[in-house]
């Protein structure tokens, strides 16, 4: 019995990349970060990076590639089987996509929560792809990775719902006209499907041509509007239909019940990777009562096209390092519910970019250890029957 482990997306960027990107001078601690993590992870040639940082005025793009090498090694040395680079070379999942597309203009920052903000753009014309915007990154990672790759690509619906609409929705005559939800829905559908056809799909085609085997469509905004789930599904299908690749979707931090029955129509989705640990107990146990965060997983099991479930077992909102035994029990519960462990992959709830590398590394190592414990337990149970 083998359970595949994979990452989800983002990792924190190292201080030497963050500061260089911001034009802030590096200090000795930043250089030491590059040295100590290079040693720890066995990053080939990292002494060259250390020398570059010590000399000063490093090239930002080159530092981005170094950060990708470090992130790959961090994931690989933690034992993760399918990896990427923690999106080290991207600005941010939304900003990167709209910066490389036509039809958008920046509109400043908006609060996400507390002191956390995100950049928001407006669609001002029909969106189109300026150029495939993950190709360079993917080509580089193909040359640098030792493990298999899975590419995260921000989905059409999330880009649509995170943008202001100055093009598809009516711009005048709205005041006092009543809540034209029908009009809003029609505008969002057109926007999301245009993005799917003209931005996401050409990106996917290009990545497949380069050799991509697994592409993860990230849709953290999928459940923003409960009455728009069919638009999310439609835009996903529009993005991937007929393309020859393993497509998965990442959903996180939602009321997952909302997705049913809408996602019954997402036939092109071979795997859903979903965050559950955030809602779960930290106590050990493999019964339903022990695992309240995973209550909804039977609905994923019962989807007619029988997708794999990427089981989120690490809470990315906390520095708490899940003991391997807790990871094991989460997997065993899910395996029991699914009745077929081959339909389970193991992953964090979401990208780990809000955690330090120290914490992320420990969490990931424990995830791998816990997965091995679960494999052993499943093998023992299989032998006993």
């Amino acid at each position, binding site marked *: 019995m083998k359970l595949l482990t994979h990452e989800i997306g983002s990792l924190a960027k190292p201080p030497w990349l963050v500061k260089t990107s911001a034009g802030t001078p590096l200090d000795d601690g930043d250089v030491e970060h590059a040295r100590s993590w290079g040693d720890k992870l066995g990053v080939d040639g990292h002494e060259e990076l250390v020398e570059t940082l010590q000399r000063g005025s490093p090239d930002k793009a080159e530092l981005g590639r170094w950060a990708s090498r470090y992130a790959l090694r961090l994931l690989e040395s933690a034992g993760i089987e399918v990896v990427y680079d923690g999106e080290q070379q991207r600005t941010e999942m939304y900003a990167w996509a709209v910066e490389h597309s036509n039809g958008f203009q920046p509109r400043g920052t*908006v609060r996400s*929560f507390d*002191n956390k903000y995100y950049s928001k753009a407006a669609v001002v014309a029909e969106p189109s792809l300026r150029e495939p915007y993950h190709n360079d990154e993917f080509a580089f990672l193909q040359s640098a990775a030792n493990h298999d790759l899975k590419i995260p690509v921000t989905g059409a619906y999330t880009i649509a719902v995170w943008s202001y609409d100055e093009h598809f929705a009516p711009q005048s005559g709205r005041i*006092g006209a009543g809540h034209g939800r029908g009009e809003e829905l029609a505008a969002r559908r057109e926007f999301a499907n245009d993005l799917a056809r003209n931005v996401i799909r050409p990106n996917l085609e290009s990545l497949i041509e380069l050799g991509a085997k697994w592409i993860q469509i990230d849709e953290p905004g999928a459940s923003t509007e409960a009455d728009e789930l069919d638009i999310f599904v439609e835009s996903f299908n529009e993005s991937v239909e007929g393309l020859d690749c393993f497509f998965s979707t990442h959903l996180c931090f939602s009321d997952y019940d909302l997705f049913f029955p809408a996602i019954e129509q997402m036939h092109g989705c071979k795997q859903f990777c979903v965050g559950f640990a955030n809602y779960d107990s930290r106590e050990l146990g493999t019964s339903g009562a022990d695992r309240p965060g995973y209550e909804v997983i039977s609905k994923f099991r019962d989807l007619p096209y029988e997708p794999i479930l990427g089981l989120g077992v690490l809470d990315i909102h906390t520095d708490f390092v899940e003991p391997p035994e807790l990871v094991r029990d989460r997997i065993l519960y899910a395996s029991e519910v699914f009745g077929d462990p081959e339909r389970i992959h193991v992953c964090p709830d979401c990208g780990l970019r809000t955690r330090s590398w120290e914490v992320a590394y420990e969490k990931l190592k424990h995830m791998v250890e816990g997965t091995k414990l679960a494999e052993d337990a499943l093998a023992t149970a299989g032998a006993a029957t």
Partner: protein
Amino acid sequence: MKAFAPGIYPRSEKLVQATRDLDRGRTSEEAVDEQVERDLAELVAVQQQAGLDLLTDGMLRWQDLFRPLLDASAGLETGPLTRFLDTNTFYRAPHATTATPTLGGPLDERYIAPLPGPRLVTLPSPFALSQGTGVPPLTIGENVLKPVVEALDAELVVLAEPFFGREEATSPAELEEPLAALAGGPSLALQLTFCDARKPLEQGLAELPVDAIGIDFYGTHVSDVPKGFGKLLLAGVVDARSSTIEDPRELAQFAERLRNEREIEQIALVPNGDLQFVSERIAREKLLRLGQVKTATVEVAA
């Protein structure tokens, strides 16, 4: 015709960066305080330039609509991070640890900043603050909000209510006692933000014991406002969730419709909710347009 801007105003890019730096240990609280003061001075100047009738401090230190009240109350605390309506902005939902939470003391100048002129203050409505706590809105009103309201020196207190208009199983009658408990001090307005107010209006929203009612006219049809509406109407004519800058003439024409078709005498033009859902640059432009609507209204009327 009046105009003003209740609710949380967006922080400038400089203040956003300062708070980020503070979180990452790269700057001091004093440096953030200084930037807050600069943001506040700029906001006051913009409101004065726009000719707004009441000033607001923009709630620049409020992390969300509830936080300072939760921090200042015994028996209330922050709960899980929760999506605010159908936006991508999240707040810490109020959570009660006792059946009778009480305010520990009035909000200080960090949260209700002194201003150089007639002012308004925005607070959550008793219904909004009680959501999810299991504590009745009346208890929240009497024990938490009333001491705050009583301590205020303000021309108007706007009680922001984002949830009520979206609840199927509620009626304005439920708000009557909690709002009455807050009366006796500054004038009170209940503003239903980001929603269609048709049903609450049909059920007697206009009869609630407050001096003004706020309606989102991007969610509500003009004909749903009762003719001869007898209170000050806070007409939400600036869309705080859209990056599109409103045309003052279109808004002025709409204000005239309110006056002529709906026979409403007292109107204040406001955003339909917190301007924090757009960037500060856009919000500033929207405030200036609000002022221009006042002028344009005079021209349309002439």
